[in-house]
């Protein structure tokens, strides 16, 4: 509760959280919010490759085929957020228990797990995920979640383990043990409530990383097929390569076709990082 109050006292962090929740809400409700479906083509001459206008039917403009950029961006945001939350969920489901056990018991298990986590972290994530994703063609959202989630758990495990390792040293854990509490009971009733905030911070870090990595993989045109699952990353890739990689393609394309998905992606990452960091600061007021 104290943490929530400390977090709420800063207007900037509340604004960032509101913006993030707004993006999530719009993404979840995209079917009801979006003015068009993402692949419907407006064939009238006035409606292809038009810039954004407030009084026109297409708020963010249309691409060269006459598809509404706003609707496409919203569907892309939806895919990106679903994958991001899926990855964060898998990362917490694997990373939090491992971090708890590793921090609580220490010893060889801790050393091996953390060494493995270090290795996975030091390697360029994009290389590993690209090498893994090559085997799944065509890629589905759940394969993407699985590949990234199996890579991202180390992020959560690390922070949880660090916090648990400091808690185990404290007197109240010793007192609980002296009263005869079993390891499971100590972890469940004394350690878990104390590290809940840390798990959330780890989850936001995993979420930000997942969104970034997913967009990068899509941008390399290795992720979800854009014709089936538009995401912010493959919308950008579509616009960039638009008929073969090269610099010729995009001169005819209006800036609005890439600027809006790029802006939404940047805004999403900014709010996730900011909320996570402010939450971390609210949890550790001393630092």
């Amino acid at each position, binding site marked *: 509760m104290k943490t929530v109050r400390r977090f709420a006292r800063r207007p900037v962090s509340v604004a960032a959280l509101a913006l993030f929740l707004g993006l999530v809400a719009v993404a979840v409700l995209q079917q009801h919010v979006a003015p068009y479906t993402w692949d419907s083509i407006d064939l009238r001459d006035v409606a292809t490759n038009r810039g954004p206008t407030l009084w026109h039917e297409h708020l963010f403009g249309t691409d060269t085929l006459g598809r509404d950029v706003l609707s496409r961006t919203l569907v892309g945001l939806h895919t990106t957020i679903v994958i991001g939350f899926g990855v964060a969920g898998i990362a917490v489901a694997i990373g939090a228990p491992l971090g708890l056990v590793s921090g609580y018991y220490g010893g060889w298990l801790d050393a091996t797990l953390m060494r493995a986590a270090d290795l996975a972290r030091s390697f*360029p*994530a994009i290389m590993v995920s*690209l*090498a893994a994703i090559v085997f799944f063609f065509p890629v589905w959202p759940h394969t993407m979640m699985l590949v990234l989630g199996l890579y991202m758990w180390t992020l959560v495990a690390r922070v949880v383990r660090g916090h648990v390792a400091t808690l185990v040293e404290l007197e109240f854990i010793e007192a609980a043990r002296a009263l005869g509490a079993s390891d499971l009971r100590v972890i469940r009733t004394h350690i878990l409530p104390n590290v809940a905030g840390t798990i959330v911070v780890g989850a936001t870090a995993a979420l*930000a990383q997942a969104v970034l990595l997913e967009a990068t993989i899509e941008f390399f045109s290795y992720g979800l097929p854009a014709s089936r699952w538009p995401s912010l990353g493959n919308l950008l890739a579509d616009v960039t390569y638009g008929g073969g990689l090269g*610099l010729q393609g995009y*001169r005819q394309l209006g800036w609005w076709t890439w*600027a809006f998905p790029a802006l939404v992606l940047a805004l999403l990452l*900014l709010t996730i990082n900011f909320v996570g*960091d402010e939450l971390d600061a609210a949890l550790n007021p001393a630092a």
Partner: protein
Amino acid sequence: MAAFVVRRLMLAAAVLTAVSFVSFWFFAKNFYVAGGTLLPVSPSTAWWRWFTGIPSGSVGKGTFGQDLWVTLVPALEHTTWLILESLVLVVCASLAVGVAAALHPRSGLDVLLRFLAYASWSLPAFLLAMVMQKALAGFHVFPLNGYPAGRAGARHAVDVAWHLLLPSIALATSFVGLYARFVRSSLLVALAAPFTTTARAKGLPERAVVLRHALRNSLATYVSVLLLEFGSVFGAAMVVDWIYQLNGVGTLFIRTIGGTSIDPSAVQLIIVVTAAIVLATSLLADLAVIWLDPRVRPR
């Protein structure tokens, strides 16, 4: 000290062997029929032949006998220059921003720099690279893609630096925020420490207090963080190099795994060389910290 280095090198060798086996086996298993014409033996046997052939120079030989170094060496060179140029930008910008923010904590300047740091931290390198390339396409001032050819020399070096300007700005920007925040917080700690008070009490000019006493002390952790994040810098450099068509490791990796039949030994070589570079920088990070901060020297 020597024992520490030897232990780390042995660990690195073990990791590299494991990485080479896993990547080779993975790609051979999924793209070849074992015993078929392209891969006459099983994946593990093929890897073992490669591994035992290292002393006689099997590294750099593809599965079909082609020379892999011919493509990998120039790619590594291009990526190295890209990373070095961005590193210069990152170090200069993050030190300047971090020190400026730490000297005036909680001022308007600090808040502004904090916001910029968040913005730069949250901007993916590929997004910035792409947006800069598109936005500057109409002006014909900066080279937008390609790595210049030419003989080594001063002219060529300037040409390369000029061509790498936009890519390294894109790459540097996504890391400046993180490091500037780091410099700020560690410098604030150092400025509040007793040794800073001592330096001020001695009557040293403020400049010397900040630069020689406080900043010097926060440098050890800065350098270690800078080198520890090298994996993500390398990953971002791969993407930037692909967007600007610099023919670096990123472009090579995408081309290598892009085909329908992927040569497992070619993929493996790129992955193992990258792993070796990353492991070497992490060892370097530990050695640099030991050199800068005698307190953590292992006995």
